[in-house]
């Protein structure tokens, strides 16, 4: 098991070849680090001494070459070392994650998610920094040390031994000082904290202090802390500079001995000048391996502790294997036998005792009981989410603990009370059971169901309306669905006539003659889709033609003012909330732009609000262009401003886009009256497509294209009436499935947070049903659904699932029980009654009491 492996297991067993290479690289590098020393000696002793220029050039050349080579080898070794470390961490991380996912549920109840996350990311990462060099560094350190020391001793044994002997002294003194420094520093932190508390208390209680004239008393309290702080900081600097002093002393002490002794020897001709130079260089260099070895030792301790902590956290055995051994994955029939089952949790409390019952394949059982009677525990035990303790659970005669997770995954569909939905599309979530199926041996993966089947299931669980709505809110871009786009476009007039027949203000029509409150100012001016990049919103503030247009229509200054209002209001409102995208729903500033605008606002406010910088102007203008009056409620615009926008729109379409706005005006008027707007495709140019009833609007959603306008409020009754009408038409023309297919691609957000609880529940139910498992366990699966959806799913169980899957449904609502073949009644962990609804009611026992208690 991964958590039982010691840290060095990974180092000794993984990537031995690479580790060998690393060692080789370092050893080779070592040679090229000593070689220059010998060259130094020869330059002095031979080249300079004998005044030979050619020798000088040769040795210098060799010196340079060796230094370059040593540098390159060091570089390669460093890169390889980090690579190795990360590679090993990658493996530990993958193994550990796979292990973690299989741990029993109890582990996840005890361990908060944050702990698991930091253990998996931060702490392991820190181990990785150490791991790459875990073998190479000490070996190299020792080798280098030996090499330099050897070289020095070879040059002169006495001198060599003395200078090497100096190092251990330093290595003892400095860490000792460092430890004392750390101790004092810890005390300093404590004192600072208590001083802060005292000051904080004085500030909060200032009323009381001033009221009682307690100045002296409070002053004394704080003064004691301040004095202590003064002393500690002084001691800290004494120690700190002590360390520095010792370091310097030793570093200079060595050369002192060298010069003294070496100089003496050289004067007496027992030691050459060149050797002395080489010795000095070697002495300097021998310090590095010493230091590295010490650091290695500290790193080792640290990594060991971290590694052990991480592994201890996950040190539990998975309860079930992933794949079956020596056989293929079972296809079961769904006979469930529970025999004297018991389950006990810590504290000796029996959650379940002596439970026995048998369900034949296809039988549907309702599991009911008083709160806390162990219904969910029983369901989870049968679903192999917990491990049974006493008694037996058999499925088709196989003991459940002998079944692997693959057997369970294929044969049991489990819907939890609060199911989980993953980041991704609705479709991906529905197919989770198919994508996730673990591959065991040659067994084939079941083919995912067709679109028809998915949509049928979506309807069965009552998710249809939501899927349709998501589909209608999709923007179909460009060439994905040309056929669908054409047909949707054709629906527009039919729907419009229906809207006119029963007028409401659910829609703000794309009326070229009006200022639209549900569109950005940018769209209000362009009133269409720009086909050239120069007129896209991202680039428009750099577009000279557009800026000139704003100037000509007297809009530029008002726009920048508007941008400033928006920036200031939004930044002040949201500055502490930028971590949550939820709050940016009605913000004109996108979360990723927030920092820029916050800087801008604080800069301009500090400067008294006089921006002259064109970059600032551009930013504010950009913000104003993205302003949607109906959504961004932090500011409002005047009628006069709206008229200026309309004037700009006219000039843009006429002069810049080169399209006939008069034609569009007439077409729109005809359309709004319910007449034929004219042949399609008239108001397009290579640069622009106008929002005219004769065109498909590429930047708008399916629904907006059909109704030719923006629905005003998302949940309003009128909008839903409108949507109903549109859906009827889609169904009649056979387009509904296509639109729903778009809706299946709706992104549910992280943990499905863009869904309601009911929607998540429905997705989970559909996900389990789609697998068509022979055993279905529903743990209050419909509890958070409205009555209609609940009834719908109940009907599906009765009509489609009956006879095809054994069902255990934990139910809270007892009015659903008559439909079940058997009702199992639990009380305080025991199975007290079992039978059909009529039998139990006639009997007048626990179920009767439960049923009437609820009425």
């Amino acid at each position: 098991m991964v958590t039982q492996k010691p840290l060095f297991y990974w180092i000794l067993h993984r990537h031995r070849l690479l580790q060998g290479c690393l060692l080789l690289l370092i050893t080779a590098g070592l040679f090229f680090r000593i070689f220059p020393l010998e060259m130094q000696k020869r330059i002095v002793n031979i080249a300079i001494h004998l005044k030979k220029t050619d020798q000088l050039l040769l040795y210098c050349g060799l010196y340079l070459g060796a230094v370059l080579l040593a540098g390159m080898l060091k570089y390669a070794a460093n890169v390889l070392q980090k690579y190795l470390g990360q590679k090993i961490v990658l493996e530990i991380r993958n193994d550990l994650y796979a292990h973690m996912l299989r741990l029993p549920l109890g582990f996840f109840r005890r361990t908060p998610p944050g702990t698991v996350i930091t253990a998996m990311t931060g702490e392991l990462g820190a181990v990785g920094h150490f791991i790459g060099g875990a073998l190479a560094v000490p070996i190299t350190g020792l080798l280098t040390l030996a090499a330099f020391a050897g070289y020095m001793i070879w040059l002169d044994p006495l001198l060599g031994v003395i200078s090497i002997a100096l190092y251990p002294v330093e290595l003892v003194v400095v860490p000792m000082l460092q430890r004392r420094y750390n101790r004092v520093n810890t005390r300093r932190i404590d004192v600072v904290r208590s001083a802060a508390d005292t000051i904080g208390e004085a500030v909060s209680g200032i009323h009381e202090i001033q009221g009682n004239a307690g100045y002296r008393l409070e002053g004394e309290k704080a003064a004691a802390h301040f004095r202590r702080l003064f002393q500690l900081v002084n001691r800290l600097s004494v120690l700190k500079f002590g360390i520095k002093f010792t370091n310097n002393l030793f570093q200079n002490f060595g050369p002192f001995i060298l010069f003294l002794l070496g100089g003496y020897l050289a004067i007496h001709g027992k030691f050459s000048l060149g050797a002395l130079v080489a010795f000095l260089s070697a002495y300097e260099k021998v310090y590095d391996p010493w230091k590295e070895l010490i650091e290695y030792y500290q790193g080792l301790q640290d990594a060991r502790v971290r590694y052990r902590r991480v592994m201890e956290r996950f040190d539990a055995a998975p309860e079930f294997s992933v794949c079956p051994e020596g056989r293929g994955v079972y296809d079961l029939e769904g006979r469930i036998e529970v025999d004297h089952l018991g389950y006990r949790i810590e504290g000796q409390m029996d959650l379940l005792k002596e439970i026995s019952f048998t369900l034949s394949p296809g039988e549907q059982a309702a599991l009911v009981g008083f709160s806390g009677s162990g219904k969910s525990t029983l369901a989870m035990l049968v679903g192999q989410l917990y491990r049974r303790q006493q008694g037996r659970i058999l499925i088709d005669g196989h003991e459940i603990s002998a079944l692997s997770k693959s057997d369970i995954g294929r044969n049991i569909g489990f819907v939890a009370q609060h199911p989980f939905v993953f980041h991704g599309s609705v479709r991906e979530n529905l197919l989770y059971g198919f994508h996730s199926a673990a591959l065991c041996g040659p067994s084939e993966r079941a083919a995912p169901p067709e679109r028809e089947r998915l949509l049928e299931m979506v309807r069965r669980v009552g998710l249809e309306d939501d899927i349709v709505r998501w589909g209608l809110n999709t923007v179909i871009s460009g060439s994905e669905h040309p056929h669908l786009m054409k047909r949707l476009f054709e629906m527009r007039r039919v729907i419009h006539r229906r809207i006119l027949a029963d007028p409401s203000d659910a829609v703000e029509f794309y009326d070229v003659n009006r200022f639209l409150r549900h569109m950005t100012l940018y769209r209000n001016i362009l009133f269409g889709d720009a086909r050239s990049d120069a007129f896209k919103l991202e680039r428009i503030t750099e577009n000279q033609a557009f800026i000139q247009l704003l100037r000509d229509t007297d809009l530029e200054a008002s726009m920048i003012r508007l941008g400033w209002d928006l920036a200031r209001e939004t930044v002040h409102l949201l500055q502490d909330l930028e971590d949550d995208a939820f709050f940016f729903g009605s913000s004109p500033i996108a979360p990723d732009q927030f920092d820029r605008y916050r800087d801008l606002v604080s800069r301009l406010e500090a400067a008294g609000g006089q921006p002259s910088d064109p970059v600032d102007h551009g930013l504010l203008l950009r913000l104003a262009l993205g302003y949607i009056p109906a959504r961004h409620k932090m500011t409002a615009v005047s009628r006069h401003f709206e008229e200026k926008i309309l004037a700009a729109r006219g000039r843009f379409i006429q002069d810049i886009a080169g399209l006939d706005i008069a034609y569009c005006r007439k077409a729109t008027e005809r359309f709004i009256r319910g007449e034929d707007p004219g042949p399609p495709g008239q108001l397009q140019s290579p640069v622009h497509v106008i929002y005219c009833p004769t065109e498909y609007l590429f930047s708008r959603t399916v629904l907006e294209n059909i109704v030719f306008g923006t629905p005003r409020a998302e949940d309003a009754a009128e909008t839903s009436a409108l949507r109903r009408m549109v859906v009827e038409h889609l169904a009649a023309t056979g387009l509904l499935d296509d639109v729903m297919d778009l809706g299946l691609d709706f992104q549910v957000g992280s943990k499905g947070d863009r869904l309601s609880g009911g929607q998540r529940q429905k997705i989970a139910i559909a996900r389990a049903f789609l697998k068509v498992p022979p055993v279905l366990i529903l743990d209050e699966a419909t509890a958070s659904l409205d009555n209609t959806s609940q009834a719908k799913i109940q009907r599906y169980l009765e009509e489609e699932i009956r006879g095809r899957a054994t069902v255990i449904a934990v139910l809270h609502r007892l009015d659903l029980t008559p439909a079940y073949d058997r009702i199992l009644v639990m009380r305080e962990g025991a199975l007290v009654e079992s039978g059909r609804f009529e039998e139990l009611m006639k009997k007048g026992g626990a179920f009767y009491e439960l049923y009437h208690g609820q009425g």
Partner: protein
Amino acid sequence: MSFITDRDESDSAAGRSELVENLEALRRIPIFRDIPLEMIKLYAYTARRQAYRSDELVFRQGSPAREAFLILSGTVRLWMADPEGHQVDLQVLDPGGFFGYMALLAEYEWPLSAQAASPAELLIVDRRSFRKILVRYPEKGFQIVERLVQMRMARMKSHMSLLMRHIDGASSLDELYRIDALSR
């Protein structure tokens, strides 16, 4: 260009923004008494306005409760359907009326219906935004929750005393409580 001081009068004639208007309305609700303006402003920012035609339903008895409502203009009638389906009028609320507020704390089924008695505009706070803002200001948030519960308990007290006056004898009250105790 000095665009901040040089206000063009015709442009600023737009009046107050929706945010400021919402803020004005929300400050007057008792649950926001002594709550810092910056926090109420977030509620003003996340709240949604909706216009109702006369007689339009705001919510129906039995549907899931997810939002609280503040009347900005118009009037709203609260009624209950008795077991035979007859409408029993309970109350008519005027502008400033705040109802459905327990939905901010937990989901339940509306025990009554709300219907616009005249064309009305409501400010709607949903539970999700309510919570998201609440957790940002834990201490103040708790204070708001306390106020909500106090408001509810005050109403319950008046309901209970009303009930006591209309029920004869302690035995029937006993009956009432037993059912309540058994249902869980």
